């Protein structure tokens, strides 16, 4: 998988990030390149806290504190040199059930797909998005099923995709949160074709990092204003 870069944006979860890096190498006979962007505080840096795992990566970029997930992912997009990228959260792990090489092969084989996601534990199956100009609804479903892949509008945070296609969409750096649905709504409008291979699974052991603030309504408001909608409903 030397034409793939595994991209990890991490903050304040050095142990999780180290476990992810080791899991990639353990379960990929021909491992992808691994790039990490770390925007944590110096005392919680991945390179400082898990130097052995950092050594295993092709590149670790340390940035200013808290540039955010969007800016971090865009930075990763700008630095990779491979045609394909894998993105996951830093608390995901590759397992035998991920069958990562096969997931990448499935993207290669499906000429209509730009992005192929796996399940995150038993969550993040295919979802559809629909807006009536007031409410954006995100609900389970796929518009087409084929060989275990549900083609849909919205997938979770662990996927393989073409670098250049993601370059065309990019993440909105003004949104430090609520960037996920914003990304996939813009991707849907742009005509990006994505799907979920429901028989591929990344393990997800969620850890809230220190100083992590979960609810930040200002970003929700900004994202909704941008698209002229009043609310986002998940089902």
């Amino acid at each position, binding site marked *: 998988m030397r034409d793939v870069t595994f991209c990890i944006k991490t903050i304040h979860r050095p142990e999780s990030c180290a476990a992810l890096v080791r899991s990639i190498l353990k379960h990929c006979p021909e491992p992808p390149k691994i790039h990490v962007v770390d925007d944590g505080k110096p005392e919680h840096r991945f390179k400082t806290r898990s130097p052995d795992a950092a050594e295993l990566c092709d590149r670790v970029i340390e940035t200013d504190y808290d540039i955010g997930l969007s800016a971090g992912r865009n930075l990763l997009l700008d630095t990779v040199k491979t045609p394909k990228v894998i993105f996951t959260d830093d608390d995901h792990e590759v397992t035998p059930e991920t069958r990562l090489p096969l997931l990448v092969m499935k993207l290669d084989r499906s000429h209509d797909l730009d992005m192929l996601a796996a399940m995150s534990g038993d969550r993040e199956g295919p979802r559809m998005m629909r807006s009536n100009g007031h409410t954006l609804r995100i609900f389970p479903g796929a518009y087409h099923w084929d060989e275990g892949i549900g083609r849909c509008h919205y997938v979770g945070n662990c996927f393989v995709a*073409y670098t*250049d*296609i993601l370059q*065309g969409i990019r993440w909105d750096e*003004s949104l430090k949160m609520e960037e996920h649905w914003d990304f996939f709504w*813009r991707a849907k*409008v*742009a*005509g*990006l074709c994505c799907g979920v291979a429901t028989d591929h699974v990344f393990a997800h052991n969620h850890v809230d990092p220190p100083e992590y603030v979960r609810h930040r309504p200002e970003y929700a408001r900004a994202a909704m204003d941008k698209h002229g909608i009043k609310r986002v409903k998940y089902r």
Partner: protein
Amino acid sequence: MSIARDVTFCIKTIARPWGCARLVRSIHAHLDGAKIIVADDGPKAHRFSEKYPQDAARCQEVINIDTVDVGVGAGRNAAVDAVETELFFLFDDDHVVTESLDMPLLMQRFQGSDIDILSVRQGKGGKPHMLTPIMDGQRIWVHKGERRRQGPLAWCDMGSNAFLARAETITQGNRWDDSIKIFEHWEFFYRASRLNGLKVCVATDCSVKHRHVKGSKKIYQPFRDRSQFRSLGLKKHGFRSMRGTSGGIFHA
């Protein structure tokens, strides 16, 4: 800045004199003292100044290009070359101006910003678009999207053909390609945004009406049905194909 003093309205038309006259009237109805330049490369009997001499007389200049079908690119270049004001606003001949085109607001936003080309919506169309080279530069992906948003302003790679710009921006550095007679739109914006680094923006709250004039089947339509010019634009930039907004692939 004032509309009468600082901006010229440019129209390139071919074989749709009725549409052109409707646009000219709508400009006069909504924009006091507007200067208009029309460039017309239609067949002699179907020229705007032949069919609507009274409306033509109200324009600052009607350029009747000797060569019939000189093309959209060359025609627009001729119109913009004739502009004497700092700014110009470009139209297609099937646009119609209504109060939704807020020129004072557009000019105010344009001045003191980094914007080089400020497009407006055309009806439901003219949304901000991006031009993303994919597949190692072999394919250009034309898709809806934007780089950055500030209220109603969306910075992107490509807007509609109804836009405000400095005449100099076009005449000095980003002219239309004379050899591309139609399908010139993406090629013009690709050079502007991706190659020449111009800042393209769409004012999503301003619009013109796009009332498509079918034109005569015998006289107008043959000028449109010429996909060889799409191939020409693609090959010029080394692309072998285009992925369109609805996912269709067009090979050069």
